[in-house]
């Protein structure tokens, strides 16, 4: 096998590895700018957390009592959501105490 042929095969192998790496996302991740990585992380931020619900009863418990308890737990969270909303509004309308100097 000539030296030229070896070079051609070598280049083809390296290119093929590059395509595989790029398609698997490994190369793409490395080349992403920081801002995009941050956005990607944020975008997946609620997906990477456990997707299990925090209901107070077992997942397979479909009894009336269990569903009533689940609904009550949801209501507590809904009230907390209203509090979160109120605190968010406060933070957006915050005014600093004017300083003397």
């Amino acid at each position, binding site marked *: 096998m000539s030296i030229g042929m070896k070079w051609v095969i070598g280049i083809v192998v390296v290119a093929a590895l590059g395509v595989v790496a790029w398609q698997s996302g490994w190369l793409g991740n490395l080349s992403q700018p920081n801002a995009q990585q941050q*956005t990607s992380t*944020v975008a997946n931020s*609620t997906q990477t*957390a456990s997707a299990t619900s925090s209901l107070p*009863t077992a997942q397979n418990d479909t009894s009336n009592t269990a*569903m009533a308890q*689940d609904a009550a737990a*949801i209501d507590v969270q809904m009230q907390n959501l209203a509090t979160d909303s109120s605190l968010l509004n406060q933070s957006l309308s915050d005014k600093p105490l004017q300083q003397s100097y």
Partner: protein
Amino acid sequence: MNFQNFVRLCVTLPFLAILITPVFVFAQTATVGLQVSATASTSVSWSAAVAAVAAKARADKEITRRIAALNDLNTRIQAMTRVSSSFKQTLASNVKNQIQLLTALQVKIDADSNLATLKTDIQSITQSYRIFILVLPQGRISAMADRVANITFMMQGLGVKLQARLQAAAAAGNSATADSAILTDLGAKLTDAQTQAQATLILIGPLTPDNGNQTAMAANTKALQQARSDLGVAQQDLVQARKDIALLLKAVLSMKVSTPTSVSASTTPATH
């Protein structure tokens, strides 16, 4: 003294008095002037000291207010359950950094004895407000988005149970057509709430302090307001979803079908 000398004295004395009076007046003015000058100088230093004390008190009040708000936010961040740990860690670090900076500034201002230094330090309170006004809403938006995600998962869990009961009821001969429509609406509302929550995090995650840049400040403000709006939509979605759940629960309870027996709970209620 003969009469002639007496007359000369009487004539000369008034003139002498006239000549001497300005000297006395000048002397008196000079004395008063000194007194006034000394009083003014004392007043200026006294009023400067009073102003410095008042300025320190105002600075202290503002810094304490900000630290309290950031501590509250940090507590809320620690209770977040649905965002990734790295996202949560970033938020917490930003908040803690701000608390540390403000605490150090408060200590420095309290110890400031030089008026110029005090002025510079107090001015930095105003400058650092630009960071505070970004970090605080950023954290609050994240916390609310986390809550939306949590409620969405809970409602999805209950929705699955309701669906199972409806299917069992339908199999037992009950009509569940209308309830299926409600179930579909429940799913749509939960999907939208989740989408809105995700959108807010994408929007506010990369925001950085404007450092006095007006364009950056306007962009940050716009992003925060958009995120607020998105979360408002998500909240309304969940309110409607909760109404759907109430309707479905009522329907399920009214259907004639043998109800499953309760099984032991495997999880505990979320209380954060």
